[in-house]
């Protein structure tokens, strides 16, 4: 589902990723970990074309990223749900509207949007906050809104960048539970985190990113 072959990425003259090769299977739930600044976010950005590789080949859900034209990038992104490290919630829109945005870009009709958004808000236990603005929510709640937005369009791939950033263990467990559920429905999930507790004992594959490359691959 996600395939990197010898991918190298520079920012100006600084190398961030060097000869990264990895493959994540369809329906898998996997982790990427590594110290801060190792390039985890960059690796995810390469998947959704926010950054382009300098060398190597990336294939996502059958799309060859190299051959992707600017105008087809949106269609790739519609297959990829993203939980951004910096949330990217719109402060002038309610929780409902923030989540609905992911469907509006498909020009889905209002009734269907309402149904889907409410269903997903129930799932992340935020239906009672539907009309609240994001800045009035706790960090854990905001995180769940972002997850709701990423999953509402039922993407084939879900990428989560540091989804438990500064949450306590209970909240982290709630969020991990959500990812397991999304994954159980067939979505391939890739989680970038520096929190080893998140994958410890899950029995899932973990890629260790260090010194610009995949240092090792292990089972969590």
């Amino acid at each position, binding site marked *: 589902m996600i395939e990197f072959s010898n991918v190298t990425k520079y920012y100006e003259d600084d190398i961030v990723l060097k000869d990264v090769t990895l493959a994540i299977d369809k329906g898998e739930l996997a982790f990427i970990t590594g110290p801060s600044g190792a390039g985890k976010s960059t690796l995810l950005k390469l998947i*959704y*074309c*926010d950054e382009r590789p300098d060398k190597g080949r990336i294939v996502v859900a059958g799309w060859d990223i190299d051959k992707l034209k*600017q*105008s087809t*990038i*949106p*269609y*790739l*992104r*519609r297959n*990829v749900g*993203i939980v*951004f490290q910096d949330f*990217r919630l*719109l402060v002038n829109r309610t929780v409902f509207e923030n989540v609905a*945005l*992911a469907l*509006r*870009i498909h*020009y889905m*009709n209002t009734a269907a949007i309402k149904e889907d958004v409410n269903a997903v808000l129930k799932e992340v236990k935020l239906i009672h906050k539907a009309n609240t603005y994001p800045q009035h929510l706790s960090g854990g709640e905001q995180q769940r809104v972002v997850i709701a*937005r990423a999953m509402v369009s039922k993407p084939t791939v879900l990428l989560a960048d540091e989804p438990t950033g500064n949450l306590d263990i209970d909240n982290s467990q709630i969020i991990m539970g959500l990812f397991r559920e999304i994954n159980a429905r067939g979505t391939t999930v890739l989680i970038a985190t520096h929190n080893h507790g998140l994958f410890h004992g899950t029995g899932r594959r973990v890629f260790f990113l260090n010194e610009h490359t995949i240092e090792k691959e292990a089972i969590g």
Partner: protein
Amino acid sequence: MKVFIYSFQSVFRSLWREKWINLLTILSVSIGLSLLTAFIMLTLNMESVIQRWAKNFGLVVYLNENISSDEEAALKNRFSQDSDIIETKYISKDLALKELSTTLGANTLILEGLNENPLPSSYELTLKSSLLAPEFVRKKALQIEQMKGVEEVLYGEKWLSSLYTISKTMKVGAVFIGCAIFIAITFITYSTIKIFFYRRKDEIETLKLLGATRVFIRLPFLLEGLTIGLLGGIISSLVIYSIYSFTSLKVIEFLPSVRLFMASLPFEVYVIVPIAGAAVSVIGSYIAVGRIRY
């Protein structure tokens, strides 16, 4: 279709949220368009006045004292075959004298002392009004002067060339001012839409990451520009209509001579102005949004 419905919803939200900037922009656009229309009307009217004057413009061909009737007929024939001349009027010696005495009125006595008619016979030629160019008229006059039996050709040379210059200047001026106003309107919508675009930069960035297409991002801005231009145009049409009806109803009552300067304003103008406003505003918005890169 859904694309448009969705975008229009977003336009109305934005129009309402930013109602003051939008109102200001709409008013500026309508002022610009009103000026443009007023100027076009002025030019058209001046042109029609000039054309009307030019219609009466003619060459007077004075004939030789001893011209034979054959020569006269030959001249008449040549004039009527010349496609640049639309009317040929013969004024005989006697008719000329009669006209002169009518003009003199009570002073006819001056003529009494003459025992012979001193006036030459002549042809009055009316030229096609589209052939107003002074250069052309001069050539024509010279050409006729060379003909057998012609004594002299007279026409209002100074008068003609100043009319011609005025008309030329007005046309060039109209094009310049028209362009200037169009650019101004483009710029007005450009800056307003640019402001909106920058204000929503974060939102647009997020939309792009969520998978929004260029059309999805761009269309609301273009439609907002379109709405602004259209409303501006409609306001401008209403203003022009009011001014026009007011002048035709009231002013003519007091100053009938104004009618001379008022060409009728075709109905199409009221439709064309909003369409032009919308088109120009869409161009402004398009430039403001610019290229969307992923």
